[in-house]
């Protein structure tokens, strides 16, 4: 009897371990297959020309495979959206965690969650049919499908990530610190700015990085509202073609295992590396500055 139980026990332990490694296996599979399908493009162009080439004409004869404008577009929409989403996300997090009454925060929190749950295609559609004509009229520009519109839509997709992770960080600041500050005669606001925020800075940084990582990898919004022109933008109202949009719109037309097909996978590699770096940095910050007890900040 005891023997049978011991065997079951060991079997289950091993089984669970094997299943738990599935995530890592999958991550490796993603990398392996991206590289397998992407690397062949470098028989046609050098890595340097691929990344720093300004011209993306994959279907011309001869084709040009330079994704600099796509990379710049991705970075531009991400940064511009971060300018909106970072303050909005962090301020909302502070409001929920520190200021709002329990009742109010119990209404706002689910709202932020629902905002996160909106399918990206719906937000893209909204940007196309409502925001684009609006921008076009107000700013008198040739098209409302541009960098600014895409950034605005992306901002609302990364706000929930930034907000809920920042809120967790703020919540984990021990109450004794707040009390100490209030007892010294600081106002609630001064306590938030001088004690709570510095103490939760690492968590908030993680939140911001993950929010930006979400924005750079988001596909449908940039596919539908960024405008799709593969040029390096000169103004925030220029149409752009970020990497995910390029992959999503061209893969259907690229002949199987043609140079174009491989070039799109190689673009996927670049995109993957960007988000991978974002995630590694976020993880490193979260791990290094992990709050252990009240003594460490």
């Amino acid at each position, binding site marked *: 009897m005891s023997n049978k139980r011991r065997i079951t026990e060991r079997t289950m332990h091993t089984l669970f371990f094997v299943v738990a490694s599935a*995530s890592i296996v999958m991550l490796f599979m993603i990398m392996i297959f991206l590289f397998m399908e992407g690397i062949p493009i470098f028989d046609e162009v050098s890595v340097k020309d691929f990344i720093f080439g300004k011209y993306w004409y994959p279907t011309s004869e001869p084709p040009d495979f330079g994704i600099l404008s796509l990379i710049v577009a991705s970075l531009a929409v991400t940064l511009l959206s971060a300018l909106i989403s970072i303050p909005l996300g962090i301020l909302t997090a502070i409001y929920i965690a520190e200021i709002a009454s329990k009742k109010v925060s119990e209404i706002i929190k689910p709202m932020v969650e629902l905002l996160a749950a909106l399918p*990206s295609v719906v937000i893209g559609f*909204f940007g196309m049919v409502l925001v684009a004509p609006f921008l076009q009229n107000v700013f008198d520009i040739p098209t409302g499908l541009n960098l600014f519109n895409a950034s605005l839509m992306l901002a609302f997709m990364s706000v929930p990530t930034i907000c809920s992770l920042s809120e967790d960080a703020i919540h984990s600041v021990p109450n004794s610190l707040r009390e100490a500050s209030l007892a010294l005669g600081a106002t609630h606001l001064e306590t938030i700015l001088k004690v709570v925020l510095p103490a939760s800075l690492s968590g908030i940084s993680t939140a911001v990085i993950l929010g930006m990582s979400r924005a750079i990898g988001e596909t449908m919004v940039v596919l539908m509202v960024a405008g799709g022109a593969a040029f390096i933008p000169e103004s925030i109202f220029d149409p752009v073609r970020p990497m995910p949009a390029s992959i999503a719109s061209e893969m259907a037309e690229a002949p199987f295992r043609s140079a174009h097909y491989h070039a799109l996978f190689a673009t996927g590699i670049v995109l993957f590396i960007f988000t991978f770096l974002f995630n590694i940095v976020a993880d490193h910050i979260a791990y290094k500055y992990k709050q252990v007890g009240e003594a460490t900040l």
Partner: protein
Amino acid sequence: MSVSVPSLQRRRNFLQKIVFNVFCLAALINGLALFIIVYFMIANGWKAINWTFLTQPPVDSMTKGGILPCIVGTLCLSIGAILIAMPIGVASAIYLNEYARPGRLIRVIKLGINNLAGVPSIVFGLFGLAVFVVWLKMGVSIIAGSLTLGAMTLPVMIGSTEEALRAVPDTYREASLGLGATKWQTIYRVVLPTALPGILTGTILGISRAAGETAPIMFTAAVFFTPSLPVSIFDEVMALPYHIYVLATAGTEIEATRHLQYGTALVLIFLVLGMNLIAIIYRSRLRKRMQ
């Protein structure tokens, strides 16, 4: 002291009031954004929704008719995805929360999960295309799409299951072990039943996440148009999110089908937000009961 510097005190309080209002405004903007988007879709979409719309396939090169194949396709894909993500996700969370001891191994696994969660959805699409569609020769099919979506939903499933397991008081585990139960007996007789409602909430969230995704199924499962409903897991399908994208950007008559686009978007929103709302309400009740 407070008597001697009342003006400074007043200024500090005034400043605080202003800044707090800014914080409040930020929070309101989020709610407003959600409200505007949902209101806009309802206002424009509700007229399109009727019995025919929900129960008929599209006709006349998708300029008329309904979206039944899309609804069925999205249900198949999201249920398929969760059938894959749930067992693997629950088992991974059990390993991480119940078996693994803190150390390098668990850190590596968690890093892997975090990174998987951060992989862009379009990259999942490329992965699904290269692995399931091409390499495993599944073709553009429900099974290939479900596997791709399943891989994407996995980190969500692991996260919510871990939260549910952490909410089970340690005293339950100790009591069970103290009675001579093995670890596995403790897990499946005490820990899992107690965590079950939380795991189910996570599952609903997982389904809704999978239902709303477009990029991963573009190359792996979804097609422009197929009038028939799927009969096997190797069939290609239409899907609500992809249908919206197609009608809004690549249809033959983008303006003429606007009402269909709104209608489809509204159905998708109902589906996704409805499931989320159920999960959120259910979870807040659970949390209250736990306290």
